[in-house]
């Protein structure tokens, strides 16, 4: 409100609209003076939706702290391994089963094969984060397209598409994810090995690709439901009707009104999908279905640490804390984004 306080426009002589005897004096009809013109110049840049959201987000201390934490974790996972003198898959002979120590430099200790656990935690964090982020991107694309098509076309198409989504919704997803993982992995391995076209994917590994695919196949419906709901409300709102009445075609309405107004909830949902994908991934790795050795993910590291946790509790606690930190940070970031992007959704 403060920007209106000094607004020169409000200082103008007040004209009572109900006064029937209103007669303009000649002075009122004169062209505006230079001084008056200058007063009408905008005092400050008008704020956009994104600037406004950014401002709200910056004021949210918890969310800002979590955003910084996520950046730190990203650096830890992607830059960290380059700074370490060890490799995640090569053990150092003579330095097996070490506790956390600074000389030789093993802050998190080493495992039974003499592999430095700090590098392994870095790589595992990288794997877990990539799964979370890539899976949510898949979900974003599939879910948004599905929901948008369903909501925009409406009618029986919407009905059929939502019935299909409903079936997915009531499938016990973890069971199917486990099955999909086991069933797809050998075929993916064969496919990757058979064709030179998939060469770049081979380094990612069939286990990871399998994980991306299964998440994408099973978790898109949440996003689809949200986007569809948004599109349905927006489609029937007054300003879209007005835009249509003024001759706006479907393309114009989608590009100008529907997409920009959905972005907020899409961003929020995607942020919440990341921790849930990381959660599921670590769960699968924990029961031995995720990435295969010598690769490590945070879940598989916790699983490895189970044998011998009495002697080496830190091997369990470090990756476990990392999982909890990542999930916590993304959950809080999602909350912050929700408050910033969509103040109506705040509780």
């Amino acid at each position, binding site marked *: 409100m403060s920007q209106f306080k000094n607004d020169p426009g409000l200082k103008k002589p007040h004209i009572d609209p109900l006064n029937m005897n209103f007669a303009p004096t000649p002075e009122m009809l004169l062209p505006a003076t230079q001084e008056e013109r200058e007063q009408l110049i905008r005092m400050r840049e008008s704020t956009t939706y994104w600037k406004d959201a950014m401002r709200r987000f910056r004021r949210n201390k918890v969310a800002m702290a979590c955003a910084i934490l996520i950046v730190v974790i990203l650096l830890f996972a992607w830059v960290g391994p380059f700074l370490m003198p060890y490799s995640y898959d090569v053990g150092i002979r003579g330095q097996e089963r070490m506790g956390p120590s600074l000389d030789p430099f093993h802050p998190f200790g080493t495992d039974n094969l003499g592999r430095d656990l700090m590098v392994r935690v870095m790589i595992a964090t990288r794997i877990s984060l990539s799964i979370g982020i890539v899976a949510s991107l898949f979900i974003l694309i599939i879910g948004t397209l599905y929901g948008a098509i369903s909501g925009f076309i409406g009618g029986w198409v919407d009905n059929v598409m939502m*019935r299909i989504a*409903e*079936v997915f919704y*009531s*499938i*016990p*997803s*973890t*069971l*199917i994810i*486990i*099955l*999909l993982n*086991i*069933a*797809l992995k*050998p*075929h993916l391995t064969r496919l990757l090995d058979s064709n030179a076209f998939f060469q770049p994917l081979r380094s990612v590994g069939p286990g990871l690709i399998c994980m991306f695919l299964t998440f994408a196949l099973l978790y898109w419906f949440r996003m689809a439901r949200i986007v569809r709901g948004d599109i349905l409300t927006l489609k029937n709102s007054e300003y879209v009707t007005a835009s249509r009445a003024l001759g706006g075609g479907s393309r114009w309405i989608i590009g100008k009104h529907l997409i920009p107004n959905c972005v907020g909830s899409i961003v929020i949902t995607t942020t919440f999908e990341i*921790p849930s994908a990381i*959660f599921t991934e*670590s*769960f699968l790795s*924990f*029961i*031995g279905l995720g990435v295969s050795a010598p690769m490590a993910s945070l*879940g598989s590291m*916790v699983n490895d*640490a*189970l044998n011998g*946790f*009495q002697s080496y*509790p830190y091997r*369990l*606690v470090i990756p*476990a804390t990392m*999982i*909890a*930190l990542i*999930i*916590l940070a993304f*959950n*809080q970031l999602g909350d912050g984004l929700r408050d910033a992007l969509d103040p109506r959704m705040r*509780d």
Partner: protein
Amino acid sequence: MAKFIVRRLLSAILTLFVVATLTFFLMNMIPGGPFNTERATQKQIAALEKKYDLDKPLFEQYLTYMGKLVRFDLGDSFKRLGYPVNKIIGEKFPVSAQLGVVAILLSVIIGIPAGTYAAFKRNKPIDRVLMFVTTLGMAVPNFVMATLMLVLFGVTLGWLPTLGLSSWKHFIMPAVALSLNPMCYIARLMRSSMLDVLGQDYIKTARAKGLPERKVLFKHALKNSIVPIISYLGPLTAGILTGGFVVEKIFTIPGMGKFFVESISNQDYPLVMGVTVFYAALLILMNLIVDLVYGVVDPRIKYE
């Protein structure tokens, strides 16, 4: 109402059909057969495959399986010869169910009062503390919680037994590990729903009438704010059932979860399919019950 139930039942059957079909074909995509063990000769494998109709075309096997499924017959296990899947589920599921029910009760009994209390003490230190704890609690995966508890209370301190499920003491750790996430979620859900209700006009009216705070809470606020919790009971059951897989593994509890993971690596097709279909049916039934209860609790909700 009747129309709604019929529609929901039809959609439940459709979902079950999809799950069964999906599971069947996924299981058969896995290379190698259930009888390809190192000791078995080619002849033995062929004989066993013939006995279990695995030599027939895939689609015929599918039809046979679905035909049996309709009569609630889940077939025989491949690994434990002559042991029907129904019998295995009948033996193992009660163990998992016991644990699951305790975990669900625990999360509801602690979650709801905690959320209500936080809402009544909004922005007071106790509310802040509760919200902080629940935020943390939601971030710790159940298997992490289970292992940490096992290390701390089971091994280091030696207060609680770490194996099996034979006395009430054995239930403490697995049940707490399983219920931590949903408990925290319920507390947060309850708080925001309660805050929403407390801001309503009828609460102001009740207070203006001079109704004691206790009556406002139990007669007006609680009843209305509990509705979102009921709709969460479906996903809650699913989470507890699947969470049971790892918790059973960690605490060596002889329930369905441990069995399911083992049966997948053994390629025991009928058992995997049986467990999946059984769990799917359980979840779908739970969702249906939740929807029906929802309408009873909140008459404003109309069945389409």
